[in-house]
């Protein structure tokens, strides 16, 4: 082209310029800052305001944290060491560490038992949480774990958890034998067999009660601290999932009576605050039990929280069931599967997969709500802080260190779970991206 215009155009470049680096304002950190922090007047003001906020937060927080005292017998001693400087008195955490974690009544020489149960929880949860990254053989351990953990934490005769386990095994065997004939026969047969086993086991355990035990029994009312939150959280979430599935299926059922029983239950539970249900567990439930039954408070609370959680989980799973395309239900019918088969083999695996994020949300919410038991004078982490520790003469007034510790502990657990759920969501995504 240039030769055509060489007479009409004054100057035409016919050689390339050497490559030059981009201007300093268009590379690296300066470019990033210009785009992300100072892209306009209002944006710059926002940035400065945010910087000021961060500065004031850190200026207040860091000296308190870095100047903290980690070793002192009481708040007074802490203040003596600090001599008027700003600083946290974290000595309360080191001094009352065991109380914060295990409550003030759990026998101190047995602390290794709940600790071990907690460590083993990870091994038991791993095959459920990371099914593709952990050998499948560990599933056996997951099945054993509830009985092992019960024995570790509560102690007492080893026969009772063993018979609990045997009952499930017998039930499973009966189910395996009968389910080929019909689902109902397998289901009810399994329940009956398990019941019989537990009944016999109960009599045997009672007969051998005098026998000395390997692990000393710890009564439920001695549970406390963060351990109580963990116990309530894990037990209630894992129990509420099967109940939630049953309630969700019941609510979707086309049998009006069953549907309405489930709807009433779910809507009632979701309509009242957890505190009122805890009041029920604390003061009302005893009226509805046969005269003379002494029921553990912790067991009553577990029952009520499980009811509470299963109503919420039922709603999540119902969402999953409703989100499945109708074609899946019709395809299952056209294969000639009956209702239990269709549910077990086709519908539930997909519906549960969709509901996992929702279930995890409910689980996180429930774990946070376990702190509410402090209102009915149980000494969980918050109850321990507000009760025995802040009321003691040594540590009266150490609010921020204790409450901050509790907040941090819950934050770590809940944030971890929600990050896991997001990771799982990405793993389970089978759609094309």
């Amino acid at each position: 082209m240039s030769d055509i215009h060489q007479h009409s155009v004054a100057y035409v470049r016919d050689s390339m310029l050497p490559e030059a680096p981009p201007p300093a304002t268009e590379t690296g950190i300066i470019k990033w800052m210009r785009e992300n922090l100072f892209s306009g007047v209002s944006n710059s003001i926002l940035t400065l305001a945010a910087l000021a906020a961060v500065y004031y937060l850190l200026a207040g927080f860091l000296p308190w944290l870095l100047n903290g005292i980690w070793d002192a017998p009481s708040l007074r001693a802490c203040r003596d060491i600090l001599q008027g400087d700003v600083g946290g008195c974290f000595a309360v955490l080191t001094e009352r560490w065991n109380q914060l974690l295990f409550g003030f009544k759990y026998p101190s020489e047995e602390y290794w038992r709940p600790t071990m149960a907690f460590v083993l929880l990870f091994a038991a949860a791993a095959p459920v949480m990371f099914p593709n990254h952990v050998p499948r053989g560990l599933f056996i351990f997951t099945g054993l774990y509830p009985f092992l953990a019960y024995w570790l934490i509560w102690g007492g005769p080893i026969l009772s958890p063993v018979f609990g386990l045997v009952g499930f095994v017998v039930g499973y065997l009966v189910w395996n034998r009968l389910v080929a004939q019909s689902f109902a026969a397998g289901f009810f047969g399994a329940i009956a067999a398990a019941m019989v086993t537990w009944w016999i086991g109960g009599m045997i355990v009672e007969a051998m009660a005098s026998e000395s035990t390997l692990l000393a029994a710890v009564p439920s009312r001695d549970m406390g601290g963060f351990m109580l939150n963990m116990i309530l959280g894990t037990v209630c979430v894992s129990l509420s999932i099967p109940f939630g599935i049953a309630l969700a299926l019941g609510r979707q059922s086309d049998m009006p009576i069953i549907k309405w029983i489930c709807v009433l239950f779910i809507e009632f539970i979701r309509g009242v605050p957890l505190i009122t249900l805890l009041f029920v567990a604390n003061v009302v439930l005893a009226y509805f039990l046969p005269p003379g039954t002494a029921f553990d408070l912790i067991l009553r609370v577990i029952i009520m929280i499980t009811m509470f959680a299963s109503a919420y989980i039922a709603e999540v799973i119902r969402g999953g069931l409703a989100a499945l395309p109708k074609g899946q239900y019709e395809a299952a019918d056209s294969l000639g599967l009956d209702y239990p088969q269709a549910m077990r083999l086709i519908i539930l695996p997909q519906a549960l997969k969709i509901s996992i994020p929702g279930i995890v949300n409910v689980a996180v919410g429930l774990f946070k709500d376990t702190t509410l038991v402090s209102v009915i004078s149980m000494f969980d982490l918050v109850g321990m802080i507000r009760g025995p520790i802040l009321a003691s003469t040594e540590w009266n007034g150490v609010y921020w260190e204790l409450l901050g510790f509790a907040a941090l502990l819950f934050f770590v657990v809940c944030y971890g779970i929600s990050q896991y759920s997001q990771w799982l969501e990405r793993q389970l995504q089978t759609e094309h991206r």
Partner: protein
Amino acid sequence: MTTFSDPPRESFRLSMLINDTRYRSYTFQFIALLLVIALFAYLGSNLMQNLRDAGLNISYEFLGEPSGYDINQTLIEYDSRSSHWRASVAGILNTLLVAFLGCLTATILGVIVGVLRLSKNWLVRKLMAGYVEAFRNVPVLIWIIIIFTVMTAVLPAPSAFRGDDPARTMLLDAFAFTNRGVYIPKPVWLEGSGIVVGVFIASVIGMFVYRRYATKLLYDTGKLLPMGWPSLVILIVPTLLIFFILGRPIALDYPALKGFNFQGGIQIRGSLIALWLALAVYTGAFIAENVRAGILAVSKGQTEAAASLGLRPGRIMNLVILPQALRVIIPPVISQYLNLTKNSSLAIAVGYMDITGTLGGITLNQTGRAIETVLLLMLFYLAISLTISGVMNLYNNSVKLKER
């Protein structure tokens, strides 16, 4: 080929109740109903037995008896000679008060944070994410206790405001933050204040009429009237004029330090503020996530289409994005309001006398009528939940995408 005819009509046999899918569902429902009735009968008979053993009965007469306890902050006239029923009503009003304040504050906070989380500014985005994660992942009970501790242990006693050179001074000479609560000025309605309020209500109506007229004019003739400043003028000017013409009929009663405590003004207890703020910041974090999700749910094509029509960014937000985002945002936000109302029952942890504190707390302990009080408590919360979810269903039906 064989021809099909109707299957032979069988007479009904008992075994069909189990084997025939037409009748099996009746069997199941019958069994389920029987089980539920049996469960209730069992629980009921236990209840009767237990009550007889304890010499109790179910009766609501205690509601009429004098309560004998004081409530430190009420919206209605109440003293310790009032009945338990009146104490419950005072509690209900306190619950509604903190729920209303909490919902309002949580919405404002949630919308601001939700929008800022989508800001182009990296620092602001991260700060807001930090806020959301910090508050969502820590139990609300801990937040309530933390803010309550600030209100009672960190704020100065009223005596700090005393003297010629006090350690603390009142903000604008009108607000005092003390460990007994926050004191704010109280409006005093003098003669003629009714007219001012009436004029204000009239100008609010007038503002909406003007806006509607301007919209109609725009749609009919394409003529664009200014919206912003005329609305403000209509809203403020007449009220101010009449306020000064009538000689300031609405005065303020300022709190002042007398003796050991502040007198005058309105005292807001630390427990109310702790509950209110904690519920607001906690629920605000959830609402922020709902707002963010709602705005992200509007596809980018909508923004681009609106831009290609030549709309300005502000109008794109108002006319295109928000109406679509609100449909996604509002249902979860309403269920957050429901959660906030239910969480307000945590008032009992800081001694704020809401319905859980009066009926489910002191009344229960004084009368020992556990079953009746807990039942009433549940019915109250159930009524609120059903009302709110009824409103939500109405809204959902009205904004549902009309599909064929």
